[in-house]
């Protein structure tokens, strides 16, 4: 999984500095205590080494009340300073702001994905997302839980120094207020099985205006194109199907890949497989791993509809290896230029030319001859271009 631990040292949350302060106070006190043991030990081992000490010179010292009091009381005092800082930093982390002055987001952790449910906006629309979007300088309260038939998880944002278990059947809370715009990794810190180490999400801290505009819209994510993705895809992602089943590739995550599944099975079978997964298990997979999903019929139809219409353009983009050299989700330059937002900059004719005759117009800073000309049927080229245009 390509991912980076973004913004770890940026002191991104208001309380991160307090936690770090407590850590560093602990660090220096530990160094003092460590040296107070190890330095005399090494010094004595050298000073009283066997070949320098005559047997008659060995002293029998077994008690020294003032010294014993000193090495009891001084470290004790230091330890209670540390206890205090542990307590005070906990107080800041755990004292929830008033809900009236906060955005309360419901977090659901389940094997092996996170999803976030926002309060209804003015038009009554409820955002349900796979990554968390929050405005800068705003108290955010997370009310977290896991489905009853799931297991423990922990919502951990290293950059914010915050973590709390997500417990099935309970609602646990955390809060934060981020002062720095950026994207921060969310990790699952409580062991939860097969794909525990892939249970990531992100917190996007964005400017207030951008957040407000998105929140009042029906766009999936801030900055997403107005091209609305299908309801089916939305459901596929928000129900965490993607955590176990890849749909763009043949990769087997936990369950089988669903790539092209729409062409292989009819709707009745697919519906059964969602509602009652253990009824027919494909060879090589185990019953009981996938929980039965109880969703409204309409939603299931939408998901199956999505299976029948997975993005051909994206498939071709990946199948032809475009993604190996051109990132499309980010501005990262892999080999060639990033294609993020390329649809807004170039028209279809230019893009088609760039695929079929790449050397005709090489962007500044890149070398001709690196990308081979792709000879693809016109229909496929149009699909890829449509995908480029739809990608954010």
């Amino acid at each position, binding site marked *: *999984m*390509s991912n*980076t*631990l973004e913004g770890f040292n940026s002191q991104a949350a208001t309380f991160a500095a307090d*936690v770090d302060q*407590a*850590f560093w106070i*602990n660090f220096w006190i*530990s160094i003092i205590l*460590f040296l107070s043991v*190890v330095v*005399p030990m090494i010094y*004595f*081992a050298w000073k*009283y*080494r*066997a070949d320098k*000490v005559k*047997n008659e*010179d*060995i*002293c*029998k*010292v*077994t008690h020294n009340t003032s010294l*014993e009091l000193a*090495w009891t009381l001084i*470290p004790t005092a230091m*330890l209670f300073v*540390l*206890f205090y*800082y*542990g*307590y*005070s*930093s*906990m*107080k*800041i*982390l755990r004292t929830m702001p008033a809900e009236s002055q906060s955005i309360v987001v419901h977090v659901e952790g389940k094997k092996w994905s996170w999803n976030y449910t926002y309060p209804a906006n003015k038009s009554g629309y409820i955002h349900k997302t796979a990554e968390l979007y929050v405005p800068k300088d705003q108290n955010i309260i997370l009310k977290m839980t896991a489905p*009853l*038939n*799931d*297991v423990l998880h922990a919502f*951990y944002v*290293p950059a914010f*120094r*915050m*973590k709390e*278990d997500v417990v*099935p059947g*309970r609602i646990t809370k955390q809060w934060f207020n981020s002062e720095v715009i950026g994207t921060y990794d969310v990790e699952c*810190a409580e*062991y939860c*099985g097969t*794909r*525990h*180490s892939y249970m990531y999400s992100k917190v996007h801290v964005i400017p207030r205006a951008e957040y407000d505009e998105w929140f009042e819209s029906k766009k999936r994510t801030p900055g997403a194109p107005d091209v609305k993705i299908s309801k089916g895809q939305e459901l596929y992602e928000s129900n965490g199907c993607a955590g176990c089943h890849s749909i763009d590739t043949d990769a087997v995550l936990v369950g089988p890949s669903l790539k092209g599944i729409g062409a292989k099975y009819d709707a009745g079978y697919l519906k059964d497989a969602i509602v009652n997964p253990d009824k027919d298990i494909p060879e090589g997979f*185990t019953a*009981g791993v996938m929980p039965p999903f109880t969703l409204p019929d309409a939603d299931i139809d939408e998901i199956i509809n999505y299976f029948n219409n997975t993005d051909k353009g994206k498939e071709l983009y990946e199948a032809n290896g475009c993604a190996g050299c051109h990132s499309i989700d980010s501005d990262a330059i892999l080999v060639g230029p990033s294609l993020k937002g390329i649809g807004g900059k170039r028209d279809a004719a230019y893009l088609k030319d760039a695929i079929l005759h790449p050397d005709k117009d090489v962007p500044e800073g890149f070398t001709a001859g690196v990308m081979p000309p792709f000879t693809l049927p016109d229909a496929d080229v149009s699909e890829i271009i449509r995908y480029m245009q739809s990608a954010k």
Partner: protein
Amino acid sequence: MSKSYFDETHCAIGHPKSTFMQWMLTVDHKRIGLMYAAVMFTFFFIAVSTALLMRFELFAPGQQFIDGDTFNQAFTLHGVIMIFLFIVPGIPAVFGNIVMPLMIGAKDVSFPRLNWFTFWLYIFGSAIAIASLFTDAGFADTGWTFYAPYSLNTGTNVIFTLVAAFVLGMASILTGLNFLVTIHRLRAPGMTFFKMPLFVWGIYATAWIQLLATPVVGITLILAIMEKYFGIGIFDPSKGGDPVLFEHLFWIYSHPAVYLMILPAFGIMSEIIPVFSRREIFGYRTIALSSASIAGIGYLVWGHHLYTSGMADIAKTVFSLLTFFVAIPTGIKFYDWIATMYKGKIILSTPMLWAMGTIITFAIGGLTGVTIAMIGVDIHLQDTYYTVAHFHYAMLGGVVFLFFAGMHYWFPLVTGKMYDESKAKIAFYMQFVGFNLLWFPMFIAGFLGMPRRYFDYLPEFQIYHQFSFFGALLFIAGLVFMFWVFYKGWTKGEKVGPNPWHATTLEWHMPTSPPPLENHSKVPYVDFDPYEYHHGEPVVKFDYETMRRID
């Protein structure tokens, strides 16, 4: 030529002729201790290999050698073996058996047949644990903590591991009971509690923990089995249970268990430091009573494992405060040991090197434990590599290092021979350097947010995993070399007399080397302190035939 305990033995049943059966049925505490050691270190090497396999997988991000599920089983196997099969029986089962009765001048433990039964109960429990490796469902993938509801839902063979942990817990309780009675009833006349060697104090404090805390985990495991196979709802929220309850019950045992592991190890430290400083120990009573107070307070601190579990903030505060109280007696012991070296004659033999190395590694393990006893900081570091590094510094760099120190120290007692000192020192330095290279980078990775039990990780953590990998190779090389030195010492080593280290405690006053079947020729009368030296030589001398003082 007088006979040693290798030549003759008492058996639980009958008088078998074959040497093999004599070992299988032996009730002699020294033989039983040796058999524990043989079995435990076999398991130890299995768990070390499993750890190495994980290190190979973690050398680079992505999947190389094993898949995620196998990795999850690997760290469960590693944890279950290291905790339940190796370190919990650990020092008490080996040196508690071999040395403790000798130290108090007893002929054996109070209940030798029970001791024999306990050993076989341990073998039975271990066999159950290992058996699930060969079943269809495979070894458990829950982690050694068996947290609900994961352990109740997983398809792997958790039942074997739970039953095994229960049986091994039973063996642990019986060992504790046996040692408690032995220490209370079989001390040589004149040996009051404050005349006991400090290792016996360590074993004594541990025995109480074994007896009182282990039943809690036994009950918890039974409840988990009932829940998983009969569907009662204690821990599973889908049946109305509460998973956090499991965490509480589990740690009510498993935290005191940490002290159960370390207290006998501290006992070994307290034996080695005075002997290799050739002078009486500093602060005998303080060290003895700190063991007892650690064992006492240790019961009340389990909640520091649950700072991020959803527990109430006031409970976190109380548990944190109590945890700091455990750090105090531990710290005092360290200063007492160092003060023992003051104006002594420091002999840097291998046992002393291990003891001093442990002072460094355990100080790091203990102080980083203080970090994560601080609630706010632990919220960040809980379940990261910082925690992993902390407990390996404390357990491997504390308990196991002192176990190794004890193995070097008592090697001539057990075998009657001496290993190659210079080679043993090389093995120590390899392990000490390898150990720090293996674990120290994990503190940094953990602070930067590397969660534990991750099969794959973000690329920026790669450098730390690679340091760890090379540290692991060096550490394991040193480990293998150390056992090779032991093997050579036992087969080809020079014969030494009963007291090669000029030690004072009773286990070094044996009529033969190695000791005979029923230990001391006569029960000695103890009217002296355990570590009496004068001008670098033991004060108390015995006629080994009559066990009367001749000094």
